[in-house]
């Protein structure tokens, strides 16, 4: 990895405004969140927002939203009997195909398979307050979905190859 100068310290006042945009995505994850809209919440320019958000929270804003949607979809699969189509719609997807593909890329199994697995494990969740479970179950998406997919494909072809960073 090339050496880089340490990133400049971010102004806490800016961070507080970036947090507000992150909170808004968490609250309305089913809505569209183009960078311009998020930037308005944080009172910064769109270019500044994307760069600052990533520096503050370690992931680009759109990927943050993706982790929230997948976490919510997983919870709905576990806790409700809603059809997968309805869950896809409620978590902000317009196409069932896209939802299924990205869900598999991130969660490692289809929505139906995850539903069966989560329900089998659900009885163990009782002791953590429900509202904190969602944070615990957020997928740790430190790489782009396309990269995760590519690595998954490589792993199938060459199972002994170590992950290259």
């Amino acid at each position: 990895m090339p050496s880089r100068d340490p990133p400049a310290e971010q102004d806490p006042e800016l961070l507080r405004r970036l947090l507000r945009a992150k909170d808004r995505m968490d609250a309305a994850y089913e809505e569209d969140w183009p960078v311009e809209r998020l930037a308005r919440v944080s009172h910064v320019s769109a270019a500044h927002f994307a760069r600052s958000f990533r520096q503050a929270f370690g992931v680009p804003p759109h990927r943050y939203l993706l982790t929230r949607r997948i976490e919510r979809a997983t919870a709905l699969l576990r806790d409700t009997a809603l059809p997968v189509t309805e869950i896809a719609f409620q978590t902000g997807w317009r196409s069932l195909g896209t939802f299924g593909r990205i869900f598999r890329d991130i969660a490692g199994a289809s929505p139906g398979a995850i539903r069966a697995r989560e329900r089998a494990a659900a009885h163990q969740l009782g002791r953590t307050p429900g509202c904190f479970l969602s944070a615990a179950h957020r997928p740790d998406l430190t790489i782009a979905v396309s990269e995760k997919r590519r690595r998954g494909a490589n792993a199938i072809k060459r199972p002994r190859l170590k992950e290259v960073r």
Partner: protein
Amino acid sequence: MSQHVEVVGLYVRDQDEALAFYVEKLGFRVHTDARNGEYRWLTVQHPDQPSFQLGLFAPGPPVHDAATAQTLRAMVAKGAMPPLVMMVDDCRAAHERLRGRGVEFTQEPVERYGAVDASFRDPSGNGWKLMQARR
């Protein structure tokens, strides 16, 4: 009860702002507000919980060097501090009341497993759950 937890503190970006928020918006009472040079020991109390004080502390000298204080301020502003939970009898009513006073809610009341919870932040970024237990 002589053995108990007496004070747990939060970091806040501005003690005057925090005091106004916790007292005027959340309904806490000031327990101690003592200054010693640059240092200000500030604690508030939930009206129904006289044995416990919530400290509202500002990162900075003389307790922290400049870099440490900056890190702490950034952590608070990013919402990276640990969860805080406040129990209420009626979450929806409390949400309505606090929202009317201008509290920044980050999650509307939701019922899960028979309990109702909502989320809000203090001006610094500390995240609170407002929780109504299962009946």
